[in-house]
């Protein structure tokens, strides 16, 4: 076995140093341990942005729907009507005035307005057509009674008073159809919330899998950090911080895009307001304004995306380290 003397072979071509290179090096900032700009990272950001956009759209529509249903219910619930039927030999205008007086004397009533004869005839025109001599028809007269906010009048007493003073009058508190409409609105809201919940669950699962996919390309980094003596918590923190940023960035892009879309729709809604199409849209979707609840919901989604990506990356790091050991 031949041997070599290391002392005599110390001089190697690589022994020549370069002070200049160290000066150049001193001016550079250290590269992040986890690559900040990778194909997998950009893909994950795009996936998170698209999913957040879809989830934010769903959240926005659901919050608008909840707001519209609530506004509509309170609006309709604050109103009752008195119907005064014409009776031969009776002056219907006198009956209307008497009914108005009864309504005005009832505690909890804010305002009373009787439909004029012309307005009442206009109400039946869609069914009977125009150009008829409506004067000869016994068309009932409507009185709209607005209720004071926060007070519920004694409708039973009001009915008794009306029966005593205006026998041809009847009070309709809309309770029956308000109940049905309320049930319908609540069902629609429940369906909307259920869809939102499903969208959020699907989004969370998709982001989790996308994060794991992006993490797969980082296994060599985890291994090297492990082999150079990094603790598990140090490695997990590196990836968690990086993916928290990626998730927040993707979520913010998707959330901002959804808010911008709602802004455009709101502007379009304002532009067509007053037109028949605008009225139809308003009837269907309400004001098309996102409202503070919608903004909060979208912000929560953005934070959720960031937390999910960070958590998924940490979990993947821990699983990888378990496999290495």
């Amino acid at each position, binding site marked *: *076995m*031949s*041997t*070599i003397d*290391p002392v005599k*072979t*110390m001089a*190697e*071509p*690589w*022994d*020549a*140093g*370069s002070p200049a*290179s*160290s000066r*150049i*090096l*001193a001016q*550079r900032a*250290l*590269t992040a*341990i986890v*690559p900040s700009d990778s194909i997998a990272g950009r893909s994950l950001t795009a996936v998170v942005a698209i999913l957040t956009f879809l989830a934010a759209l769903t959240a926005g529509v659901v919050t608008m729907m909840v707001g519209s249903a609530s506004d509509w219910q309170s609006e309709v619930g604050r109103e009752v009507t008195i119907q005064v039927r014409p009776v031969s030999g009776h002056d219907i205008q006198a009956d209307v005035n008497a009914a108005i007086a009864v309504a005005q004397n009832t505690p909890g009533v804010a305002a009373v307005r009787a439909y004029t004869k012309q307005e009442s005839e206009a109400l039946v025109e869609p069914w009977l057509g125009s150009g008829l001599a409506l004067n000869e028809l016994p068309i009932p007269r409507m009185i709209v009674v607005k209720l004071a906010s926060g007070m519920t009048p004694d409708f039973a007493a009001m009915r008794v008073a009306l029966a005593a003073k205006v026998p041809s009058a009847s009070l309709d508190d809309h309770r029956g159809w308000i109940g049905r409409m309320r049930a319908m609105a609540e069902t629609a809201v429940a369906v909307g919330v259920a869809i939102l919940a499903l969208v959020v669950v699907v989004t969370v699962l998709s982001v989790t899998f996308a994060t794991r996919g992006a993490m797969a390309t980082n296994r*060599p*980094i985890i*291994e*090297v*950090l*492990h*082999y*150079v*003596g*990094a*603790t*598990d*918590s*140090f490695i997990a923190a590196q990836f968690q911080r990086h993916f928290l940023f990626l998730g927040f960035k993707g979520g913010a892009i998707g959330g901002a895009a959804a808010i911008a879309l709602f802004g455009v729709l709101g502007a379009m809604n304002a532009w067509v307001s007053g037109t028949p199409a605008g009225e139809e849209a308003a009837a269907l979707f309400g004001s098309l304004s996102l409202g503070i609840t919608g903004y909060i919901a979208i912000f929560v989604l953005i934070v959720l995306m960031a937390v999910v990506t960070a958590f998924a990356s940490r979990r993947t790091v821990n699983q990888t380290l378990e496999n*290495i*050991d």
Partner: protein
Amino acid sequence: MIRFENVGLRYGVGPEVLRDLSFRIEGHSFQFLTGPSGAGKSSLLRMLFLSLKPTRGLISMFDSDIATLSKDDRATLRRRIGIVFQDFRLLDHLTTYENVALPFRVLGKDEASYRAEVVELLQWVGLGERMSALPPVLSGGEKQRAAIARAVIARPELLLADEPTGNVDPNLGQRLLRLFIELNKSGTSVVIATHDIALMDEYDARRLVLHEGRLHVYD
């Protein structure tokens, strides 16, 4: 420094790939670990590097029974060991300087506290002009030297090298061997896993020979 007593290793429910290994690695020592392909050299290196647990027996490292160590304790112990992989395992997005400085970085040290040391070592291994280069543009020999520099930068007490000359020409292999000898002279215990007989003939050192799962020691 390191003591193996009746250590055995099997993967899953398969047969034992390493059987009844009993040996010591003393401080400041130099040894080759050799044997035919598939003899278990890499498995033994992984056990020495605490990334593989034995299925039986006792391993004591730096006066600690490794079976009783927590994960963080193992990470702390691993910092006293440097390892050079056959495939280098350099991170492609970090410069040569950053790769070599990684052991300091994971300790949370400020760059100013280790910059001079890293630069000095890189110059010593002949990479002074390649500090800002990324691994994909380094030659095989340069990658190997960068990997060795990363393994020794934190002054480990034990250096493990897995086929360090496997990817380089014989001339560079001899130069790398001299580098390991120099490191050993400066106080680091060295274990070089290789099946390169010519390389082992270059330096008279202790040989640990694995054959059919058993270890034969030739002092």
